[in-house]
């Protein structure tokens, strides 16, 4: 799950009155911070699920952390014709069902891609060069008493296999090229416009890579796509970075491989059962663990709000949403 910072009060608005303004009605199905509320209140009349009018509202704001968009939810709000999701991932949305009912679905497009790509490369550098571990070592005074922390290893020239070459995967590839990494990728189909090597099978991709980056959407096909065979193909010198969804990797198997040195290390921003993480990871020095924050910077939050508002405004003026979910 990912949530907005909890240091600001977050609540679902509880306006139940009939609209007194001309502002279009918007159903809010997720908690919102004050920043969100003030931005939305300026443009829309907000309704919560508890409002008697909720079943007649045509547009709703949703989030993967709080909502599952399935037939039951769509039955509950039968007037919905537009859903805007505050994240990039849409594995919580039954897109087929939405299409069948004529509900447009928008997410936040490529806003997040740069932030996620920056973060993925940072995580990778951190794991390869042991930055977090050496920071902890220095703070504990061990540089003085024990000399240098063990060396990391060189990133340049390493073979990187990207699982999912969407907008995030492409942004990661572009950055890693500047570090002189050699890029290969797996995607549903080859992308003739890119110069990277396409490898159609994930075990082969892992076997030919020093580093695997998981940057794909979570679907039925990609659930546990990184499994025991893939990790073994990646091998003892292999590093894995996951900024997609925890469930793309068989987590218990990953933990076992890390603990037993069957792969060299991992940088993980996502986990199968967030915010719970396997406790075996906590003691390991060959991992970097972060709380699903590859997306989040204050700048990104502001952009997300703007994009969501723009999508609703397009819908309310009879135009198609601006950043419809693209099934790629």
């Amino acid at each position, binding site marked *: 799950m*990912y*949530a*907005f*910072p*909890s*240091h600001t009060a977050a609540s679902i608005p509880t306006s139940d009155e009939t609209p007194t303004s001309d502002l279009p009605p918007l159903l809010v199905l997720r908690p919102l911070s004050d920043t969100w509320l003030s931005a939305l209140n300026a443009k829309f009349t907000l309704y919560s699920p508890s409002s008697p009018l909720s079943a007649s509202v045509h547009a709703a704001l949703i989030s993967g952390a709080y909502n599952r968009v399935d037939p039951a939810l769509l039955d509950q709000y039968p007037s919905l014709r537009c859903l805007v999701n505050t994240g990039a991932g849409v594995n919580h949305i039954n897109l087929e069902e939405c299409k069948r009912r004529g509900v447009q679905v928008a997410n936040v497009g490529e806003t997040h891609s*740069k*932030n996620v790509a*920056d*973060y993925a*490369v*940072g*995580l990778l*550098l*951190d794991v*390869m*060069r*042991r*930055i*977090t571990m*050496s*920071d*902890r*070592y*220095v*703070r504990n*005074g061990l*540089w*003085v008493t024990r*000399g*240098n*922390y063990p*060396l*990391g*290893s*060189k*990133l*340049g020239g390493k073979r990187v296999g990207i699982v999912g070459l969407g907008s995030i995967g492409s942004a990661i590839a*572009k*950055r890693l*090229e*500047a*570090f*002189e990494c050699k890029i290969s990728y797996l995607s549903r189909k080859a992308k003739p416009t890119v110069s990277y090597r396409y490898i159609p099978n994930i075990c082969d991709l892992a076997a030919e890579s020093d580093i695997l980056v998981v940057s794909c959407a979570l679907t039925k096909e990609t659930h546990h796509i990184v499994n025991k065979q893939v990790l073994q193909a990646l091998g003892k010198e292999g590093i894995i970075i996951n900024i997609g969804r925890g469930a793309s990797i068989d987590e218990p198997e990953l933990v076992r491989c890390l603990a037993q040195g069957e792969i060299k290390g991992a940088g993980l921003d996502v986990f199968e059962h967030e*915010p*719970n*993480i396997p406790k075996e990871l*906590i003691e390991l020095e060959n991992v*970097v*663990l*972060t*709380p*699903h*924050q590859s997306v*989040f*910077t*204050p*700048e*990104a*939050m502001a952009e997300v709000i703007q994009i969501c508002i723009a999508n609703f405004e397009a819908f309310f003026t009879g135009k198609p949403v601006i950043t419809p979910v693209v099934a790629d």
Partner: protein
Amino acid sequence: MATTTCTTNTPKIEEKPKVLVLQRINAYFEGVLSPHFDLIKADESSLPIPAFLSTHCRHIRALLVMAPIGTFGSSLLDQLPSLGLIACTSAGVNHIDVDACRKRSVAVTNAGEMFTPDAADHTVGLLVDVLRRVVMADRYVRNGSWMLIGDYPLGSKVSGKRVGIVGLGSIGSHVAKRLTAFGCPISYFSRAPKPNYPSYTYFPNVLDLARESDVLILSCALTDETRNIINRDVMIALGKDGVIINVGRGALIDEPELVRCLKEGVIGGAGLDVFVNEPEVPEELTHMENVVLSDHRAVTTPESFKNVLELAIANLDAFFSGKPVLSPVSC
């Protein structure tokens, strides 16, 4: 060179060239170098260094210097009258009195470009870690705080930050290339503008560079001109959201002032691989959440060590064969 009378089954014995080593040499380095050279190790002698030098080193032509610690200047050179080469395995040579060497026709070689990509990689890693708070986030997750408190406070976007590089040498230009791929516009301060990099903006002084930058990267050599080049005025110009990354030498920054500026919020954060008095790190830094600290490892990976040693061997071989050295220090 010792020779034996040639018979068909007696091998010719050649002495390996002698190379003096004044610092303790680790097993890995020794393993790589000793097949090529007769290593004369001062620290294994019971004699104090001056006596060792005058007794054993009058004919020594080459000195190997590994760690960039100590001072190698006139007083040492006076005791090595036959010296023709100081081969360093570090990138920086601020510990060598290069002028004194030049006056005595002693060549000085360094690690050339062998460390450059790794130093640049580490620089970017430090920057992303500082801006996106990766180190603190990792600690947060391991403490179990993710479950109890909620999400960790946000960092700040990397893409698009204005990057100012102090010293656009080989490391600086490699950093620039990497950060360009992150969508960061690049500016720099150097002794003179670099016509090879027309898309980077030149500033003739560090203060102006700092004013127009969100991030300052220190990747220049430590000289008399660059000592304390980052002072309070520069940090004020950089501003409260500004971040400094130092992979050069600790003394490029006025370190006590840096600590003060971080505490007071004059600047926003720092990623530091080097310190004035390594391995000692100012204690206040170890309590700050907006810094990332590493143990002078920017250049070091096993791969770069191997490359650097090969380069040192190549420099020494060239010297002993009367050929030009491969990676002379230019000043």
